[in-house]
């Protein structure tokens, strides 16, 4: 069938381009808002996604990845002894202070992991090697935090907490939009930095005769005159049972029922809760999306984009239909059914959606690439979100056609005989 909709749309190219610019703006706004929202969500759980662990064991006080209390290494030792556990490693995820060469103090997040284990490995190592982290007082940083941390390159010597630190590698993609810069290091080193400037004390008690011993780690800041408790020329020691980690990463023996293993870990270990990778991702994403204003703000931006788009498309379609009212009257007089008239208007809306969506996606991909490469900020446009945005664009444009359809419905076909 001759496409009156498409021909009407393309009849006046400058007008069409102006109209499409409005749709492009709205779709780009929605795409970028959703992209930031998805990127933000993903960045909050990247640490979890980069692990190969089947189960994450954390303190039973865990609220989300970044809000939890430490777990004693003694629990890690217990977990390793379980026959269902193929491998267990500690992961330290904790705050520290970074002293740039000049300027203000920077709050950083230490990620302490076992460099020789596959349970956690950082994303994309650009320079250096993870194996270099076994050296004392060494760390890797993300290339996008290089300026913030004032690191010129590999080999730079700076200070973190009260100890020296040497940068031995650069990574990419190990950042979070809501967290402080990540500093990756071995568990031994991480433990040394955590303990620097603090004393620890472990208090144990036997609540009842025959029951299990309950231990609590107590940390106290050192007085200023004794702040450096570890000599930098002394190699960091291995973690002792009295030390703490933030998470215990568990790789199950093959064929294990993860749900049963989770239950067993919670029974055998004290004051812990076990999560599958997906559960911890879900808890963390939900926390940031629903319990903070960030989800609301980004969600609101998306809604504004959809509303703006709907208004723009409604106006364009309404005006286009008004301009071609006599043509619609002619069609009605000549016997066009209501369905045919609706199809013409909806087809016009569909073409507007397609012509608006394609350049908007190209623009959004460009913006995402630019933001990611220049700022390290993740603006995530996945195939699923691209399809979702296409569906939203279609719904927006077709929904907008309702007003135009109402206008055409009111056209009296007898107008054709009025000169």
């Amino acid at each position, binding site marked *: *069938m*001759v496409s009156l909709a498409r*021909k009407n749309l393309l*009849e006046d190219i400058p007008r069409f381009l102006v109209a499409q610019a409005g749709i492009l703006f709205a779709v780009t706004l929605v795409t970028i808002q959703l992209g930031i929202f998805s990127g933000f969500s993903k960045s909050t759980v990247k640490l979890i996604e980069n692990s190969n662990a089947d189960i994450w064991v954390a303190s039973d006080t865990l609220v989300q990845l970044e809000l939890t209390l430490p777990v004693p290494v003694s629990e890690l030792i217990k977990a390793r002894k379980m026959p269902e556990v193929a491998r267990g490693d500690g992961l330290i995820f904790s705050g520290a202070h970074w002293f740039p060469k000049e300027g203000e103090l920077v709050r950083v997040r230490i990620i302490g992991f076992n460099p020789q284990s596959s349970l956690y490995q950082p994303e994309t190592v650009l320079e250096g090697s993870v194996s270099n982290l076994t050296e004392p007082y060494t760390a890797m940083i993300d290339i996008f935090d290089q300026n913030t941390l004032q690191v010129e390159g590999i080999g730079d010597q700076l200070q973190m907490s009260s100890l020296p630190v040497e940068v031995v590698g650069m990574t990419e993609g190990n950042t979070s939009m809501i967290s402080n810069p990540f500093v990756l290091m071995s568990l031994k080193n991480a433990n040394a930095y955590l303990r620097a400037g603090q004393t620890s004390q472990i208090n144990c008690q036997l609540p009842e005769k025959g029951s299990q011993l309950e231990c609590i780690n107590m940390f106290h800041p050192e007085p200023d005159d004794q702040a450096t408790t570890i000599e930098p020329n002394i190699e960091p020691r291995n973690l002792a049972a009295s030390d703490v980690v933030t998470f215990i990463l568990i790789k199950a023996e093959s064929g294990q029922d993860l749900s049963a293993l989770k239950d067993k870990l919670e029974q055998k270990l004290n004051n812990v809760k076990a999560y599958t990778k997906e559960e911890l991702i879900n808890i963390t994403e939900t926390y940031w999306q629903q319990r903070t204003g960030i989800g609301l703000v980004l969600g609101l931006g998306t809604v504004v984009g959809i509303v703006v788009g709907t208004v723009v498309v409604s106006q364009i379609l309404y005006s286009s239909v008004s301009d071609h009212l*006599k043509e619609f009257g*002619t069609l*009605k007089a*000549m016997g066009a059914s209501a369905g045919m008239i609706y199809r013409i208007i909806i087809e016009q809306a569909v073409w507007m959606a397609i012509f608006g969506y394609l350049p908007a996606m190209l623009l959004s991909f460009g913006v995402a690439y630019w933001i990611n490469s220049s700022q390290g900020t993740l603006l995530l446009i996945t195939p699923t979100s691209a399809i979702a945005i296409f569906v939203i664009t279609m719904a927006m444009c077709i929904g907008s056609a309702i007003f135009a359809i109402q206008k055409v419905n009111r056209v009296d076909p007898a107008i054709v*005989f009025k*000169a």
Partner: protein
Amino acid sequence: MASPSVTVQAEQITMFFKSGQQEIPILKNINWKATRGTIQLLMGPSGSGKTTFISILAGLLTPTQGQVYLLGQEITHLSRQKRTAFRREHIGFIFQNFNLFPALTAAENIEIILNMKGVKKEQARYQAQELLQQVGLHLYANQKPKDLSGGQKQRVAIARALAGSPCLIMADEPTAALDSQSGYQVTELLKHLAKEKGCTVLIVTHDPRIQDVADHITYLEDGRLILPN
């Protein structure tokens, strides 16, 4: 009920338009009919009710009272959808201002009506070319209306009115916007439709040039027939 040769019959057509509390009479008790293969002229001064009358005959307006039979089918009491379908099937329209779709070429202006009548794409393209050939415009098939003269536009409109071979042609001032040469060509085409194709052609006009080809002329004044046929 009308005889088989009567293609259009109006019985006691009365039409009022409401203006506030008042009802203004537009047509008063009109009885009228047209037979197959004739050219019927509807003439009268402005405001006499010609446009309202042709709109009622075409099923575009519903009279306040009275019935219209087209091809033996009483249409005034049909549902809107059925009247629309009836027009699509049996009536071709020609307008004073051509009412061509400016975004479409001459051929596409015809194709879209053929598509609407259920003719498939390729067949519609072929038939559109044939119809343009009948009005002498096959060389202008790919021209848009803005590139055609007034006379050419009206010939395209006539070709469009013929799409799907309707039995009734309703034309509103078809020569009003045309120069004498184009007006003559259009008049000849309308005569051809009636005499060669057997269409009933109903024309609302002020143009005396068409009177020569008319079989019957009906005059309307103040909503009444002056000389019923």
